[in-house]
Structure formats: C-alpha cells, structure tokens
C-alpha cells in the first residue's frame, strides 16, 4: 500500500465549490498533498476546512470541482487506502477496543488475521495493550483520543486526513502524536491535518495551506512562504532592555513575557537601525527574521 514511485500518492483538490443553502462553504478551494509531506491545513472557524476534508471522502459532494488521487478522480476503492479522523470524534462506545479496531481495519479491506495483528501492534504502541478487551466508554478521554487516532491509521493508509487531531490533547499527547505523524511521513504517507494551534503546525509541518471563506489564500512550503513574506520580525535589546526604533510602519505584534517583537518591512534599513541602537547603549539582543506562521496567517486572512 505504500507509494510506488514519486508520482503516486498525490492528492489534488481542484476548484472545489460547495454551497449549503445561502452559506458558501467552499469557493474554489484547491491544493495538493504529496507523499511523505505533512500539510497543515489552516483557516479561521467556518473557513471550510471540514467541508473540504469531507469532500475527499465523498461525505460531501462538491457542487463543482474535483478531488483527484494520482491524477484520477478519487473512487471508493482509493478511499480504502485513506485514513480519516473526523473533527467530531466518535467510535462505538460499547464495543471492545480489539474488535472495534479490527472491524474498522477489515472495512478498509484488511483480512481478519492481518487486521488483528495491526490492532495489537497499534494498541501496544498507544500503551493500551492491556485494555484490548475494554469497552471504549471505559477509557479516559485521552485514551479514547488515542484509539481514535489508531482507528484512522490502523490500515496503514497512503493518505491520512486528520481534522483537528491535536484538539484536546495534553502536551505529552501532542508530542506523541507529532512523533507518529513524522514517522508516517518518513514512510511516505501523505498527511494533511487541520489545526488552530499554529505553533504546533510550525513545528510539525513542512507545507501549509491557509483558507478563508472557502478560498485558499496562501499555500506552499512554510519556509519559502516565510522567506517570501514582505515583512520581517525585528527585536532589539539595548542594555538588556527592549529598544523601539523610530521607524515608519512599524507594528508591534507580540508583547508577551519576553521582549516585544515588531513587524517591519522586509527591506527595512537594518544597518542604520543597528547603528542607531549602538548610539543609545550596548546592543544586547538583535533579531531580524522572517515572520512566524501566526503572522503569515493573520496576513493571509487579513485579520
């Protein structure tokens, strides 16, 4: 089920449009997910992320546009090698873990024996090996989340579509999930997940797609997007204290517990700024770097 060559395992969404009554959910959404890449799918609430993901699985039929898998319209058979974790979590509450996961694996086309082996491997990996015969409802919330993740990946999919997979996880859970995703990507799985935790996305993803009002407003390799931005982050400390240069168009973007950060134009005269800082005192800190994902996001959605 793994990618056979570099052109296989590519998911393309092209010009997806979908209206629900008066509400426009998708307005020409399009992007691509490649094997071995982790795509962060971002957007404000109601931007159309879930609808786009549901289109991949045929759960929502777009009014126009198409979803392609390896260049061909995605069919039912293709979807069996996709893994999906919906935003609304849920499995059968009264079914035992082992039979529940085996059932889902078999629905994805696995044979009974292979399915049970995969289940046992995943349960061990999730630290739930001793709970195999527990009912889902007997597990803690966090463990249910783990089972949910296992349910979407049990059949070793070529494409994993995860809607808010980090939602509700504690920091340990977050790290474990990030590890799982990196591992899958290393094995060639194409991954797309949505999230509101932008710092996290920055840590985990190579590619990002940002949508707003059903339209893709920014997409590409995260590092390239950052580098291509017209803005830069600037922070200067003089004598251990933040120093604010007098520069037209400077915007303070962060004032956390650390030193305040400012957004300036990409071609800001940093040589001059540094020279001016030196006239005030000893420069103890100076950073000038591409904007963070948070800033790109704000820039993209214009809010």
């Amino acid at each position, binding site marked *: 089920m793994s990618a056979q060559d570099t052109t296989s395992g590519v998911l393309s969404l092209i010009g997806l449009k979908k209206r*629900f009554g008066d509400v426009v959910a998708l307005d020409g959404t399009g992007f691509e997910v490649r094997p071995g890449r982790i795509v962060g799918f971002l957007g404000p609430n109601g931007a159309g992320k879930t609808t786009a993901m*549901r289109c991949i*699985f045929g*759960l*929502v*039929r777009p009014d126009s546009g198409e979803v392609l898998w390896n260049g061909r319209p995605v069919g*039912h*058979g293709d*979807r*069996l090698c*996709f893994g*999906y*974790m*919906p935003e*609304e*979590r*849920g*499995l*059968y*509450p*009264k*079914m035992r873990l082992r039979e529940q996961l085996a*059932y*889902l694996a*078999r*629905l*994805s*086309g696995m044979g009974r024996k292979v399915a049970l082996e995969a289940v046992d491997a995943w349960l061990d990996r999730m630290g739930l090996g001793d709970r195999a015969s527990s009912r889902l409802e007997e597990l803690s919330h966090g463990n249910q989340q783990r089972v949910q993740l296992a*349910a*979407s990946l049990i059949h070793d999919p070529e494409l994993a579509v995860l809607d808010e997979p980090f939602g509700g996880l504690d920091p340990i859970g977050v790290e474990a999930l990030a590890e799982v995703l990196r591992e899958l990507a290393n094995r060639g799985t194409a991954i797309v997940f949505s999230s509101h935790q932008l710092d996290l996305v920055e840590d985990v993803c190579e590619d990002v797609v940002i949508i707003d009002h059903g339209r893709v407003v920014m997409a590409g390799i995260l590092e390239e997007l950052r580098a291509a931005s017209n803005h830069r982050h600037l922070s200067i400390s003089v004598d251990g204290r933040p120093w604010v240069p007098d520069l037209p168009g400077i915007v303070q973007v962060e004032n956390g517990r650390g030193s305040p950060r400012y957004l300036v134009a990409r071609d800001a005269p940093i040589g001059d700024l540094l020279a001016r800082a030196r006239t005030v005192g000893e420069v103890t800190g100076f950073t000038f770097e591409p904007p963070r994902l948070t800033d790109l996001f704000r820039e993209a959605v214009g809010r």
Partner: protein
Amino acid sequence: MSGLRQILLVASRDFIQRAKSRVFVVSMAVIVVVIVGLGLLLASESRRATPTYRVGVVGDVPVGFEKALGDAARSFDRRVRITDYSESAKAELALRKGRLDVAIVGGRTLMWKEAEDPQLAAIVSTAVQGLARARAIERLGLTSEQIASLLVPEPLGKRILKEPDEERTPRIVAATVSAVILYVSVLIFGQFVLLGVMEEKSSRVVEVILSRVRSRHLLAGKVTGIGVLGLVQMVIVGAVAWAVMRGVHIKGVDLSGITGRTALTMVTWYLMAYAFYSVLNAMLGATITRQEDVQGVAMIPALLLLPGYFVAMTAAASPGSSLARVFSLLPPSAPMVMPVRMAMGKVPAWEVVVAVGLLLASIYGLVRLAGHIYEGAILRVGRRVRLRDAWRAV
C-alpha cells in the same frame, strides 16, 4: 474490496452486537418463558375441556338411569357425575351452594339453582325419556329383534359435498399466530434499526464508517444484520411455540398439518414486512441524533403497523369483508392480513399478486427514498432533520 463484503461485515457486526445486548437476551428469554407458560396453561385448560355436569338424585330413579345419563352426556361431548341425596332439602342446599348443576327429584322433576341449562336439561330428558320408552316397548311383548329395530333405528346415510380441508385449522392458527409474531418482531427489530442508525449518528462513529463504506452499503448491512437476527428470533420463537403446542396436545388444534410450505410462506411475508419497515426505520433514524427525539419518529412505523394488526385479528372471522380485502392489498398491512385471509380460504390469485407486487414496488421505492434521505441526514447532527431538507441536501 467489494461492496458485498463490506455489507456482510457491517451485517455481522450489527448481528453480533445486538445479539449480545442485554435487551435482546432478556427479551428472548421472556418470550420463550411466556410461550411455554401459555402452552402449559392452554394444555391444562384443554385437559378440563370435557366439562363434567354434577347431577344430584333424590328418591328413586329408573333402573339403568346412571348408564343412560352417561350415554346421553357423551353424545353431547360431556360427562356426568351423579350424587345420591337422601332428601330433597339436602340436594337443594347443594344446588344453592353451587356444588350441583341440577337435581332430579323423584325421577320426574328437575331442580335448578337459578336458570335452566338447556343442554343439561336435554341430556337428562334424553336419559329419562329413553328409559321410559324402553320400558313401554318392553310391555308390548315384542321380540328382541323388533325391540332393537325400534330402539336403534337404521342410521342415516351421509354424503358430504365439500371435502374437508384437514390443513385449514392449523393454517389459520399458524397465520394468526404468525401475524402476532410478525407484528411484534417487525416492531422490535424495526426499532433496533432506528436506534442503531441514531446511535451511530449520535456517537459520531458514522463519519468514521462512511469514510470507508458507501452509505447505501452501511444501510444495507445494518438492515440485513438486524433482520437476520429478527429472523433467527422468529424461527426460535416459532419452533418453541410449535414444540410446545405439539408437546401439550391442545384439544382441537392439530398442528401436524403445518407444512414446510406454510412456514415458508410465513417467513416470506415476514421478510417483506421487515424490509418495508426496517428501511423506513433506518430513514427516520438518520434524521435524529438525540434520545428524546426517538419517541416522535418511532411512532410513525408503529402507527402504520397497528391497523394491519387489528384487521388481521378480525380477518380470521370475516376474511371476505371489504376491510380485510383492502388491508390485505395495502403494503403496510398486507404481510399480516393477506396470510390470514389465505389461510381462511380462497383468495383470488390476482389479489395475492397485486398485494405482493405493491409491497415489492413500495419496498423498492422506499429503499431509493431512504437511501437518499439517509445520505442527506446522517451527518447533520443536532436537532431533527426535516425529510425535505435531507432530500435536498444530497
């Protein structure tokens, strides 16, 4: 991965999970206990089925009275028990206390508590008059052959125009009982489908399933799995009922006439009824998410089933009534009413064909409609989805 394999996987999951559920196990046990209990009750009723009249005798009665009374009672399928009383007052007291049904005083007067029982009066009269007649003939001094020809006349010859239908009674019993079983079973298993669909929706697992399985396959698997369970239950219940009724020998009901063909007919009607109602239930189940909405939608199939059930129960008495005829053609009631009518006697072949045709056509239409509604409603969590909105959503 073929759709069929997925349907079978879904069906076996639903079958196993439901079969293991407490509701099913308990209901199954209750039904079996009720049937066995009912059978034993019927059996003890039927053992007492030859009623015995208690007859009191005061004073002299003709010689041979006891035997004559017994013979007369037998011809009415009754028995008598005779008690002698030394005086009229004692017999009167026994009558008043209900220990006697009638008292014969001096071989001439019948004494009743309140009203005369015409049958008992006839039995006693037959015995008394028969003995009187025998004595009168004796006094005529005839030969024994002459006496015999007077007392035991040549029996009348008989000719029956219509061959008796040996299977008729068992067929009617089978049809009525299966109408009851069908009604209960379709109601219960239809609800299982409705709840099963709703629970998948409210637990949100349906989105996980539908990312792997086409909605119509999920629907088909669910309906099949629960339907097979219903069939298994019906077969078990039917077998227990059959065994109990055979085992206890209920008078007047000979079930040996229930043939494999009768059973097959019943199962076929059941399957069609189940298909109709389960698909309807699945469609309705897809429109709701919350437990409190169950009542509102579950009422719809229940109300559709009920009239057919009542008409089926009355159809045994009047199979040709226009009410029974109409309801035996309408798809929601045909599976209950038509088998009863068919068991009662001749139903024109075209009526059966029309009933089955209409039912199959409506099942087909319902499957199409339900598949569409199901798809449009199943992911819309929250308040009840209106059918029209669900239809438009796809």
